[in-house]
């Protein structure tokens, strides 16, 4: 028997494969393609205090081994989430974790305290790393003192597992990670997208309406792996890694670098059943290498 389950801050995931916020809708969009009960968890689309229309089109540019997006947290707000979306997703046979976003400290606190009331949501992921909103977002995730402050304010009102999603657009990921842990985070998820841009040389114009956007996909995987490795070695809270995971081998690399679980992001756009295939691939890897417990892989990188 192989054990795929992992325990993260007291929460048991049936396996370490989850899906990244903003790439998996609210989960039910994938019902035609896969059984959500096969994966460890779903991080649903960002929820903010009120309705947001997001940025203007175009919001996406394909790049070498990746893509840029500048969606800008489009969502209908926390009231709509609680009334319309929560009832239809709360009984999925997997952990549903809400990505909490905002422009001000007060907005983060408000959304987190509202989500705290939802019985079937065992954790939130505080998004202090969105590069596509003018105010707040990434600003909270790139200045250590602000990272501590927003995490602490949310910690005061949120009683369940508090995860904080880090931005890679910083000089020292370790410094930010420590600041967030100081603020009371139970888990760190990293990395969000890298700030980038794309230009149409023929028209001499930026491709995105916002000029810059967030880069995701395999293009960022080496950076994400390095940051997960650094943070895993620097803090005493579990890390959930993401950034360009396209297959089971990528996922195993993140586990070895110190991720207790992984998030599949952009790959969902290309193969909507990829997360289940990654679960199967991790299991096959374990059998091939005679590993009976997936926890043996976590942080199992051999550097000697």
């Amino acid at each position, binding site marked *: 028997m192989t054990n795929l389950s992992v325990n993260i801050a007291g929460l048991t995931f049936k396996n370490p494969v989850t899906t990244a916020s*903003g*790439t*998996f*809708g609210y989960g039910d*969009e*994938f019902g*035609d*393609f896969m059984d959500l009960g096969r994966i460890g968890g779903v991080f649903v*689309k960002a929820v903010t205090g009120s*309705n947001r*229309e*997001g940025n203007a*089109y*175009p*919001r*996406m540019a*394909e*790049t*070498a*081994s*990746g*893509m840029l*997006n500048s*969606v800008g947290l*489009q969502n209908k707000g926390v009231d709509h989430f609680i009334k319309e979306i929560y009832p239809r997703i709360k009984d999925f046979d997997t952990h549903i974790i809400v990505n909490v976003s905002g422009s001000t400290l007060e907005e983060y606190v408000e959304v987190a305290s509202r989500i705290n009331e939802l019985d079937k949501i065992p954790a939130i992921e505080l998004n202090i790393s969105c590069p596509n909103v003018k105010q707040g977002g990434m600003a909270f995730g790139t200045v250590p003192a602000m990272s501590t402050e927003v995490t602490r304010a949310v910690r005061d009102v949120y009683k369940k597992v508090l995860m904080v999603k880090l931005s890679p657009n910083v000089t020292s990921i370790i410094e930010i990670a420590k600041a967030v842990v100081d603020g009371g985070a139970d888990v760190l998820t990293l990395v969000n997208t890298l700030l980038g841009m794309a230009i149409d040389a023929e028209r001499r114009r930026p491709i995105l309406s916002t000029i810059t956007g967030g880069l995701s*996909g395999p293009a960022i995987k080496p950076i994400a792996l390095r940051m997960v490795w650094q943070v895993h070695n620097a803090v005493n809270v579990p890390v959930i890694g993401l950034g360009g995971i396209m297959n089971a081998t990528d996922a195993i690399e993140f586990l070895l670098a110190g991720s207790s679980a992984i998030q599949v992001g*952009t790959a*969902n*756009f*290309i*193969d*909507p*059943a990829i997360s289940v295939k990654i679960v199967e691939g991790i299991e096959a890897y374990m059998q091939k290498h005679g590993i009976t417990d997936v926890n043996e892989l976590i942080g199992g990188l051999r550097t000697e």
Partner: protein
Amino acid sequence: MEIKKTVQDLTVVSNISLNKRHFLLELVAPEPLPMMLPGQFVQVLVKDSPTTFLRRPFSIHQADHRRNSIILLVQIKGEGTRHLSHLREGEKLNVIYPLGNSFSLPTTKKVLLVGGGCGVAPLLFLSQFLNQNSIRPTILVGFRTKEEVSEIETYAKYGEIFITTDDGTEGEHGLVVDHSIFQKDHLPFDKIYCCGPDAMMHAVARIAKMQEIDCEVSLENTMACGFGVCLCCITPTDRGNERVCVEGPVFNTKRLKWK
């Protein structure tokens, strides 16, 4: 009604070059084709093309339940579509389908279909569908030049066909909106369906509005996923930003907040 979406490996039955820039790809399904409606699209995975990271969306040009196949009309635009143009009979293509909404069935028989360039793709499927509902539409399609004029005999089976070419080498000279059909004060149509370049759809929508004719357009915004989760392909509507891949690609122009 919700149509179940599937991911399947379809097999190339034929790959026919229409001209230097366009080709027809017929793909047969391993299982009975799902129900599909005109206006819906497929998301094609292009393998072995390093610069093609995301899937490529294409309108369903024809769906043949007897042959259990779909036909895509593809314009060569970049490396991905060039790669597809080289596919041979028997090769497999991974496809997510059917995606998006569809053109609505008109309540009138006086219907005009307007297509430009590769935007004609969904209009063949639509004209077949209209025929099945006892409607024989007027079909106006625009091409760049005579060399690109194609499938006219096929369209002619389903409706009365008119063409324009940008250079005047066949049909009327100019853009589709310059065609004499549009030069009347009162167009003899109660419904217009349109697909093509943005400027063309805007121009047709303006004419439809002036003449108080109901008009639907099929948009082709760039998209990452194609099934509603990335929120990249949005267009502003009277209900806020809506997804072209789920609430569209077909929109009634009354609902669009075009600049």
